[in-house]
């Protein structure tokens, strides 16, 4: 066998199993009756020749060669029952794998040779096509209708807004009040302490909001220091030290 021929051959294989299958086919017997030992021998010779010709073999060919070398020695040496697995079984498994690859290869060829649509058989060239026209059946209930009208009416009906007269504390008043009171506060003092004592709930709310804004403004001006340990914890004020 010449080196050139070997090169060409190796290029044609789709992996070591493919090479093994081709070698097995060369034995010209049913795959179920091939001699695994002979096959292993042929493969190893093949790979050895490739090596001496310094052809670059893909790693998986070498892995297969190593495994086959192991298989060969296991088949030739007296069987050690301690050794797993049984070499005869490994040989059988290899033979089965070759059979299976051969079967799939043949199946592929048979598949491709079938009457294929668009190559051998044809569907109608100019089908009219099937169409589905969707028509909508609209649904709505009387309640939808009533509530929709209610929404429209409520949205567009003139609405009179009446703002009730109520006591408030303006921001200016709060700034003046805190600025005046803070001078006497040496320790941290909760903001609530700065609110008017006799205010009703509504005024207290307004005063708290205004005082909070006032505290922020005074802090910005450097006239007060703020302290709060965590969100929603009491807010403390004092004069700058």
């Amino acid at each position: 066998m010449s080196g050139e021929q070997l090169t060409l051959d190796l290029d044609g294989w789709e992996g070591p199993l493919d090479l093994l299958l081709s070698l097995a086919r060369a034995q010209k017997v049913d795959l179920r009756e091939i001699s695994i030992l002979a096959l292993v021998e042929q493969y190893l010779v093949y790979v050895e020749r490739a090596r001496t010709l310094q052809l670059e073999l893909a790693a998986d060919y070498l892995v297969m060669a190593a495994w086959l070398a192991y298989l060969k020695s296991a088949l030739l040496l007296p069987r050690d029952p301690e050794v797993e697995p049984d070499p005869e079984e490994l040989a059988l498994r290899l033979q089965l794998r070759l059979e299976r690859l051969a079967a799939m290869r043949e199946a592929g060829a048979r598949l491709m040779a079938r009457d294929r649509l668009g190559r051998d058989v044809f569907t109608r060239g100019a089908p009219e096509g099937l169409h589905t026209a969707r028509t909508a059946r609209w649904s709505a209930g009387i309640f939808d209708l009533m509530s929709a009208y209610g929404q429209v009416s409520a949205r567009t009906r003139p609405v009179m807004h009446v703002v009730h007269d109520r006591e408030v504390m303006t921001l200016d008043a709060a700034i003046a009040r805190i600025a005046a009171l803070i001078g006497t506060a040496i320790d941290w003092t909760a903001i609530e302490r700065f609110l008017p004592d006799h205010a009703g709930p509504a005024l207290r709310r307004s005063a708290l909001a205004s005082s909070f804004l006032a505290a922020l403004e005074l802090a910005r001006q450097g006239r007060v220091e703020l302290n709060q340990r965590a969100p929603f914890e009491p807010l403390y004020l004092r004069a700058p030290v």
Partner: protein
Amino acid sequence: MTPPSDFLRAVEAVLFASDEPVSIDTIRAHVGQGDVREALEQLAQDYAGRGIELVRRGDRWLFQTAGDLAHLLRRQREEVRRLSRAATETLAIIAYHEPVTRAEIEAIRGVQISRGTLDVLMDAGWIRPTGRREVPGRPLTFGTTPAFLVHFGLESRRDLPGIEDLRAAGLLEPVDLAIEQLAVEKPDDDA
């Protein structure tokens, strides 16, 4: 039909697979020697009265589905769909105010209506043009149909609940007002 000859079968297949009507010459180019004209006549006979027919257009031939079955190829499918909010409001306004023009509907809704909204309601068969308002531009007026009454289970338009009924049912509370009220009614925890 008589059992077809191989030649007839070939002509039949060529006609079937072609994506356009074919002339006798084109058929011959595919099937070779034989009397194409006679085969065409035989095929036309074979297919007469079936769901597909061999027809001649000028000097070309083609298979097509029988004309009386064309309606089967276009299937109607009904889908139940809910009216959009815009369409529901528009329908409600028409029902309460008919006859009413498009401009009046928009004035009541406070929002423009898109072209499709009235189309949907007409498509549903619930409204129809009822005449024209005798003002500049003579705009169309719309009103409800008998199908509207049937669909909504009403004897007549007078069965529609009045404004006071709606108010009593709490349907006159706009969403944002209702939310505001909820907020006011909540007791002040931190005061």
